[in-house]
């Protein structure tokens, strides 16, 4: 079985501050990991994904995430947030080629001007 936990339901940061959104997963094998962003009344947009290689993966709009097998984590980071980054961020995990991604509960990010 697989599961994804996003421990922070809401995060508020000031514009220009750094950001870390936490994601923990539970899966005994090698996971495919994803971060998606959802803007109001829209579908999910892929920020980045990871399967193997360099544990730090770069995504769109300055986002990056770091995979840690020892901590079963895949935290999302951004050095300096912009007000337009306000959205809901979902971490997701897929087991294999025939397994659809399973999502965490999401973290609602609010960036204060």
């Amino acid at each position, binding site marked *: 079985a697989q599961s994804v936990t996003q421990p922070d339901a809401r995060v508020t940061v000031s514009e220009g501050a750094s950001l870390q959104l936490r994601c923990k997963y539970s899966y005994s094998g090698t996971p*495919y990991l*994803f971060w*998606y962003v959802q803007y109001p*009344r*829209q*579908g*999910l*947009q*892929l920020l980045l*994904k990871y*399967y193997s290689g360099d544990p730090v993966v770069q995504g769109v709009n300055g986002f990056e995430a770091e995979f840690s097998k020892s901590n079963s984590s895949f935290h999302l980071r951004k050095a300096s947030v912009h007000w337009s980054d306000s959205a*809901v961020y*979902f971490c997701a995990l*897929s*087991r*294999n*080629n*025939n*397994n*659809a*991604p*399973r*999502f*965490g*509960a*999401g973290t609602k990010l609010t960036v204060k001007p």
Partner: protein
Amino acid sequence: GPKVLQIPSHQIIDMGQMVTLNCDPVSNHLYFYWYKQILGQQMEFLVNFYNGKVMEKSKLFKDQFSVERPDGSYFTLKIQPTALEDSAVYFCASSLVGGNSDYTFGSGTRLLVI
């Protein structure tokens, strides 16, 4: 980039009636998915469809639910009969392959069962 289109964007239906949600996936994609999201909550996996067959489904994919993609047209989710708890936003997604793939999501169909 390529888009997944969902039709209609909103649907209101009487409890007990049938509803069909339509999804026009990215043209060369082979895997199709439905997810259910209740008002701002978690995106819950419903079903994964490939090569004309359901590959996997969750406990949320009740017997009243069915999916098909006849002749490469829309990928559809049919609920018959609908129940009040089916009210949610239903997201369709597609991908070229499974696993480590770029999943493209539609903007959702907001279903209200009254």
